[in-house]
């Protein structure tokens, strides 16, 4: 009778599905060993992820770098409200400007009165001492040099009394956060290498414990890919479960820090709450775990599988 051999794709998918499930089952039956290995990957991923989120939260807490780079243009007293609004409109159309907001002298006075208890003092003055102004928010991608050019251009206009561009603080903060971001990346690379080595060692031990099976497989003609596959899927599962631990650790850390951070923010009368990982970050953590697990497993099978022979 002729044997029915499924087509290549069916065979390939069926075999992968079988080995994938079997590798998961093997780890499920060894919860302690799986937990320990997954925790190593989890901690490896949690540290740089946590640092990355810290940097992102600091950016948000600082009110956004974009806002701190605002340019305030004070207009001369003689400039009429219609001319001021026309200038505002023309500035808003510039490529490097995200938003431009005109505040008339009367509006500035009202705002000042509302924010302070100096109403009586203002009433004593014969004229409104506050100038009309235009608040400009540059586009995010605009760098310090571009803003300096914009400020210089504004200073050269007849209707402009004074231009305020104070971005020193924001530049320093930006620099510090860039250092922290780079540190997170370096930490991720260093810990990633450590995780690959740890995973490689785990898979090496797995190979040793299944030596008899590997020998038999080789003797009956199993191709290298067939023998390698269970170990690669084991690495993948370790990596993915490690990612889940990392995500859990980050959420636990966020939960633990939320109350004291909220208290601190309240003391500064701010409106900020700690952000957890966004979907993109979650996807990166899961992907990184899978890649680290596979890389470690690949390293181990490349080095050790060929050495397993019948004694």
């Amino acid at each position, binding site marked *: 009778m002729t*044997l*029915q*051999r*499924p087509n290549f794709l069916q*065979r390939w998918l*069926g*075999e992968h599905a079988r080995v994938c499930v079997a590798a998961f089952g093997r780890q499920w039956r060894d919860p302690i060993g799986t937990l320990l290995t997954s925790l190593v990957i989890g901690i490896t991923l949690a540290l740089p992820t946590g640092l990355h989120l810290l940097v992102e939260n600091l950016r948000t807490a600082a009110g956004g770098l974009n806002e701190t780079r605002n340019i305030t243009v004070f207009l001369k007293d003689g400039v009429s409200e219609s001319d001021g609004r026309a200038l505002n409109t023309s500035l808003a159309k510039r490529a490097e400007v995200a938003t431009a907001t005109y505040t008339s002298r009367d509006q500035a006075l009202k705002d000042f009165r509302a924010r302070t208890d100096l109403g009586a003092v203002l009433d004593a003055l014969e004229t409104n001492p506050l100038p009309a102004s235009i608040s400009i928010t540059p586009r995010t991608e605009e760098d310090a040099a571009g803003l300096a050019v914009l400020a210089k251009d504004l200073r050269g206009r007849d209707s402009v009394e004074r231009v305020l561009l104070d971005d020193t603080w924001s530049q320093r903060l930006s620099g510090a956060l860039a250092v922290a971001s780079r540190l997170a990346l370096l930490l991720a690379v260093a810990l990633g290498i450590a995780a690959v080595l740890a995973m490689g060692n785990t898979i090496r031990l797995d190979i040793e414990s299944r030596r*008899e*099976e590997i*020998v*038999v*497989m*080789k*003797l*009956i*003609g*199993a*191709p*290298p890919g*067939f023998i390698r596959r269970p170990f690669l899927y084991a690495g993948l599962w370790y990596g993915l479960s490690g990612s889940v631990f990392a995500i859990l650790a980050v959420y636990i850390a966020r939960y633990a820090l939320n109350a004291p951070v909220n208290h601190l923010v309240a003391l500064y009368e701010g409106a900020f709450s700690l952000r957890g990982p966004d979907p993109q970050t979650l996807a990166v953590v899961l992907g990184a775990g899978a890649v680290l697990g596979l890389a470690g497993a690949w390293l181990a099978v490349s080095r050790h599988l060929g050495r397993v*022979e*019948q004694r």
Partner: protein
Amino acid sequence: MIKPPATSEHILEFEDVGCRYKGGVDVLNGLDFKLARGEMLFLTGPSGAGKSTVLRLAAMQLRATRGRVLMNGKDLAGVRAGKVPAHRRELGMIFQDFQLLHDRSVFDNIALPLVIRGLSHNDLARRVRAALDAVGLLGREKSLPRTLSGGEQQRAGIARAIVARPQLILADEPTGNLDPRMALDVMRLFERFNEAGVSFLIATHAIDLIEQLGHRAIHLEAGRESQARPEAASRLTAI
């Protein structure tokens, strides 16, 4: 009387084969023999005579350092490392220590060569049951190997070797761990498959069995064929 091979066509040929292990030890020294298709050939000789080395060369676990090993007329020296698994899939292998996987059922052990070949589940199950039936283990497919007797474990090993219908079966001391009656049962089983056309190359110390079965035997001494005929350690009539 020695039973003649079914055909003059050769499935395996050793031509002046030498094999030197690392360290400079010559295990085979110019061995010449031919195994006809459908023949059952025994290799005998003392420990260290090179019997297992012959099987390992045929299975490409080793490469000849001199001469040629040909299977179906093809020189195995030309088989690249990546093609060794495909070469082994044309063989069935039986071992003294059975080499069964003890964490898998008898069924799963026997199914392994078919899993590797990617057979559909239905075909695989049908072929495994047929193999189990042929070795008399039908009904034990769910058992773990440890729960079987030595003879049953060897029969499971034989079922695994024949399930993919190889052209040639290599057996290394297949009766070494069995009592004389079980050993004879196993050899009778080999004969049944041999009558169905499967070639056998069997390394063994069991001279009694060879005499009883009447197949050709090559006696090895110090890595080459010896014309001296070994004496049986005991007689089958004493079994």
